């Protein structure tokens, strides 16, 4: 658990307290190192601080105390704009409820992944098509989210996360709303992404899924209860 010179994500003594009343300590003195290309699972009960930890790693939230370093840079040195652009370029997010924009087709939803990097529309749509083909949805380009199954919607969301070719993929219970078969499919896609060198960090409730990960972080009441791998 000691600081590692090769780690791409390094959390040092991170705490997060949500202002009350009463104040809630969601994370308590967490230190983690994640190396490039690792496949990491975060497990724990509801309310144990898993999502808070993932949001912290994904730069969606600030720590109350402690230092977060990504690729050797202290993120507290970043401005809000720089954090936003760093998220856009380096981190792909996958959410439990997919969060697709209902009025856009699958291809347009995926293309939104490149919108804030100033990529031209034609280029965005071209890359979106490739990403959808990669997750096996090349035949669903013009479908709206409501015309897709849950598993397909989550694959569109994955395509949106990887269209920007991120270094890290963060997934918050991506299989939570899916049946067993669709869930396994999603997990396999994430595993394949890891195989091609992406660092994947995923929250899961499913003990069976958790077994597939080399590195496992278990949280209880905002503290690390178990740290494997």
């Amino acid at each position, binding site marked *: 658990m000691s600081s590692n010179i090769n780690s791409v994500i390094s959390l040092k003594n991170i705490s997060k307290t949500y202002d009350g009343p009463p104040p809630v300590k969601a994370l308590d003195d967490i230190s983690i190192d994640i190396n490039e290309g690792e496949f990491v699972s975060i497990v724990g009960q509801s309310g144990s601080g898993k*999502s*808070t930890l993932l*949001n912290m790693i*994904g730069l*969606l*939230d600030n720590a109350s105390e402690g230092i977060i370093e990504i690729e050797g840079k202290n993120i507290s040195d*970043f401005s*809000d*704009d*720089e954090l*936003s*652009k*760093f*998220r*856009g*370029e380096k*981190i792909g*997010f996958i*959410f*439990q*409820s997919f*969060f697709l*924009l*209902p*009025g*856009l087709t699958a291809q347009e939803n995926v293309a*939104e*992944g490149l*919108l*804030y*990097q*100033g990529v*031209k*529309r034609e280029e965005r749509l071209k890359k979106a098509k490739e990403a959808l083909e990669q997750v096996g949805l090349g035949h669903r380009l013009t479908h709206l989210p409501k015309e897709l199954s849950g598993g397909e919607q989550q694959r569109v969301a994955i395509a*949106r996360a990887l269209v*920007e070719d991120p270094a890290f993929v963060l997934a*918050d219970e991506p299989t939570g709303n899916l049946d067993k078969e669709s869930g396994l499919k999603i997990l396999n896609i994430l595993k394949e992404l890891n195989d091609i060198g992406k660092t994947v960090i995923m929250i899961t409730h499913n003990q069976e899924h958790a077994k597939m990960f080399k590195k496992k972080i278990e949280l209880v009441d905002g503290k690390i209860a178990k740290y494997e791998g």
Partner: protein
Amino acid sequence: MKVNKLKTRDLFFVALYGVKARRGRAAMTSIGIGIGIAAIVAVTGISSSGKADLLATLESFGTNLIKASPQAGFFGSQESLPVGVVGMVERIGPVEEVTSTSRANLLVRRTNFISEYEGGGISTVVTSNELLEVIGGNLSEGRFIEGDLSDVPVTVLGAVSAERLGIKSIYPPAKILIDDQWFGVIGILEELTIHPDLDRSVFIGYGVAKTLFDIDSEPTTLYLRANPDYVEDVVDVLAPSMNPENPDQVEVSRPSDALEAQQAAEAAFTNLLLGLGSVALLVGGVAIANVMVMSVLERRMEIGVRRSLGATRKEIRSQFLLESIILSGIGGIVGVLLGVGITFGYTNYTNIVFSIPFWQIFGAVVLALVIGAISGMYPAIKASKIQPAEAVRT
């Protein structure tokens, strides 16, 4: 660190997405602005059409026409102007044309079957052929009292008196009774607009007035045209020139002033309607602000996703601000079309000149956009302040 930016064209489409995804709501939201802008465009359009019409009227009659008549004396005495007054006035430099009329106190009737007590309301004006030219009047039919016609019992009717006498045309030939003398109708005038008193008159020549009614050619009213650059100066010297001893007994007026006064009275009404239009705009702006605040709350997920995809606070703020401007802009454009339509319908119906200056249309659209920007400011700031971690929490 290099910060890539959302392209302006993309920002527009992102904002448009918010509008398109909720079409029904967008339409309802824009209605307020649409009504306000329509009211303002229609009111200003009708008002400026009215002004354009007035200008056209004034142009046809001319603003350099001056009318001089004796001030009614304290007991109604002094009904005529001094003898030789036309000559005096002609000697004023900038005066271009002068003509005079005499009002004769004669009873005008259609036939002798009409009681003498029911023949009121129409006056008899003794005049010469120049009158029409000086006042800029036109005949709708027949001719005026030209040359020798001055000595024979013929008459020309003003537009209103023709209607009152029931004579619509000089065919078949008609005659009327002026103080028990029959006069043949040889012409009917078009409405003069700026001389309502002449519209209610019948005209006869000086010659016949002298022979039949023993009326001397003592003028009661002078009509004159002055050089347009010196109209005010002529107005100033006219009374002292006509009656040097008692200049205050001469009343000098410009018929075009009356029309302008009438227009000014209508302007007050226009301002009232403009006020109502502004209230509609204000309500429309508040409606947009309300809907946008609601929209921000509903679309936390979208905001969270966009932030996680790399959107900065400023880009989120711009998106919602532009969305609000688009909503208001749609209302503005619909309002302008509606307002122009109403103005066109009104001018067509009342048969006046259609005129909406371009700056009014342009100004109305800009006004709508500004209202959209002001209404969208608070919701946009609210949207940009949402913490991404909070927004993606399920």
